[in-house]
């Protein structure tokens, strides 16, 4: 039997993918299925009532708070994505086009420096920078530009956006860098040879060819920021809470796992739908190339 499996091409293929397949099944499919199942149950004080019901989804649709939170989450994620990708592109471009080849890995290494400290510490650091008595406010007061501390930079949505944009920057830089690296430099020369300036060459050749990396960066930043709850918890104040905080509250503080599960499913469907639309809009750039 064993020999039969290892001798056939198909058998060996199945054997080869089974460890990651089991891994994916246990760590991804089962938890997802459990969440999905939970979303159709109800919490009955300490027990979970396992009769099938759509009450959780009904509640999410009817109570405006959930819709508002989801909307704010999508808005924050969109802002974070826009800021991150716009700031990441010049960095990736610089490393790819203006750094000597033997120095590039050093630069990529430097870009990952923020990851050397814990995410939590980085969030607290932004608190120090943006806070009431923080670096920015004391600095501006000391040079006399403002009389009292700026309040719009901490404990609101802006603070969440700034912190998340910084946290996700390397995730955006790397895919764009890879896409830029893959561009055959003779294409840029060909464009100039055919009469285009360096400026126009960027828009007619470099940017279109870097789009797969930009699309990847957008997805890599957009998808996880929807689910982030640490930054909004610490930086968002009352007005900066997002859908993920509500999910956390439902699961832990309110002990209502089914409603939390339903919220998680709704958030996931939204992210999936938006990501798919985004990929479809950009399919022109993602076509197969040799």
């Amino acid at each position: 039997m064993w020999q039969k499996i290892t001798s056939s091409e198909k058998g060996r293929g199945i054997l080869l993918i089974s460890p990651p397949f089991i891994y994916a099944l246990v760590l991804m499919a089962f938890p997802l299925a459990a969440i999905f199942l939970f979303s159709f149950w109800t919490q009955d004080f300490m027990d979970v009532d396992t009769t099938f019901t759509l009450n959780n989804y009904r509640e999410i649709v009817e109570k405006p708070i959930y819709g508002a939170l989801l909307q704010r989450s999508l808005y924050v994620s969109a802002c974070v994505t826009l800021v991150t990708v716009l700031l990441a592109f010049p960095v990736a471009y610089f490393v790819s086009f203006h750094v000597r080849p033997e120095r590039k890995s050093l630069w990529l290494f430097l870009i990952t420096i923020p990851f050397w400290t814990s995410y939590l510490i980085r969030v607290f650091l932004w608190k120090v920078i943006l806070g009431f008595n923080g670096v920015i406010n004391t600095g501006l007061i000391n040079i006399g530009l403002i009389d009292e501390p700026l309040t719009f930079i901490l404990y609101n949505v802006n603070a969440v956006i700034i912190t998340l944009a910084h946290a996700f920057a390397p995730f955006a830089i790397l895919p764009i860098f890879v896409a830029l690296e893959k561009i055959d430099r003779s294409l840029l020369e060909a464009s100039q040879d055919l009469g285009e300036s360096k400026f126009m060459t960027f828009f007619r050749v470099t940017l279109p060819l870097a789009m797969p990396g930009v699309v990847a960066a957008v997805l890599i930043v957009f998808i996880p920021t929807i689910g982030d709850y640490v930054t909004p918890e610490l930086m968002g104040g009352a007005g900066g809470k997002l859908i993920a905080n509500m999910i956390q509250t439902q699961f832990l503080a309110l002990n209502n796992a089914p409603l939390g599960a339903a919220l998680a499913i709704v958030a996931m469907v939204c992210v999936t739908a938006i990501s798919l639309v985004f990929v479809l809009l950009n399919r022109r750039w993602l076509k197969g190339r040799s």
Partner: protein
Amino acid sequence: MTALITLEGVNKHYGDYHALRDIDLTINEGEFFSLLGPSGCGKTTLLRTIAGFESVSSGLVAIGGKDMAGVPANLRPTNMVFQSYAIFPHLTVAENVAFGLRKRGDLNKAAKQTLVEDALDMVGLDGYGKRAAHALSGGQRQRVALARALILKPKVLLLDEPLSALDKKMREQMQVELMRLQRHVGITFILVTHDQEEALVMSDRIAVMFEGRIGQLADAETLYRRPRNRQVAEFIGKMNFLHADVQAVRDAIDLEVQGLGRLQITAEQSPELRDTGPAVVGIRPETLGILFDGETTDRKLVDGVVDEVVYYGDMTYYDVRIQGVEAPLNIAMKNMIGRPVLDVGAATKVIWDERALVLLK
């Protein structure tokens, strides 16, 4: 013939590396000009200097009488066919060909489309306009690259090893097509190649380059028959070299050649050398011969022994040792009726003629 491109004392340094050394060159209007040389000889650098992708460290590059110093590539009247063809993978064939037409405000959309169709037609790709560029074969890519450059009607078309990525059949076909195209459009072509056959077949004139210098600049026949020095002779085709001693230089040249004895050649057979003393003579394999049984000749003969036989089908290359010469002579023989392929070790007679000798510096 009017000069189109003039290079005077052009030097190019990359740090310590001296890529171009005092290049003086004039390329005429409507000429098919080749830069030939081994890799690293500076031929591509020279081409890129003309295109405007490399600046010169010193010297003058002028196109059409205008000094090109400080003129970027996009403002020069040159277009290039890149070695990799550099076809834009995100555009269709027609969009690739039309790439350089964006700035032509005098043309409306329909006129541009007609130009694109004409250009594709000219390179034999009519009907391919809507194809995705990444779905093309090597030969088709090259045609797109040609159409894309020629549609802009440049004064000079620069070709950087355009045939090196193609297989042998395709390469020979494209050689003929490039020549036909050049005659048709009448603009100057400058070809960079390391393939001497390619250069000999296509070019009006060839500059052979070594280590950043031009070794010899001549038409194909002169280059093949009268190479100036041993380096050029070795690079172009096969050549046998024999030590010689030049004894007298008058209207004719008297010399003693190793293995062949005393003989006399005309001054024309020595493009450079005018001094007496030790020298080297070159002789091409196809100007030597083997006297087969039943054949006669009125040329000179020398005894030899076959050392090696390489059979090519239409030709057989023999290495034949003759008395007094260390290296065997390479001889190319057509395989004609009644000529057997000789065995290694066979005693034979080598036919030679002093008119085929060239005296090298």
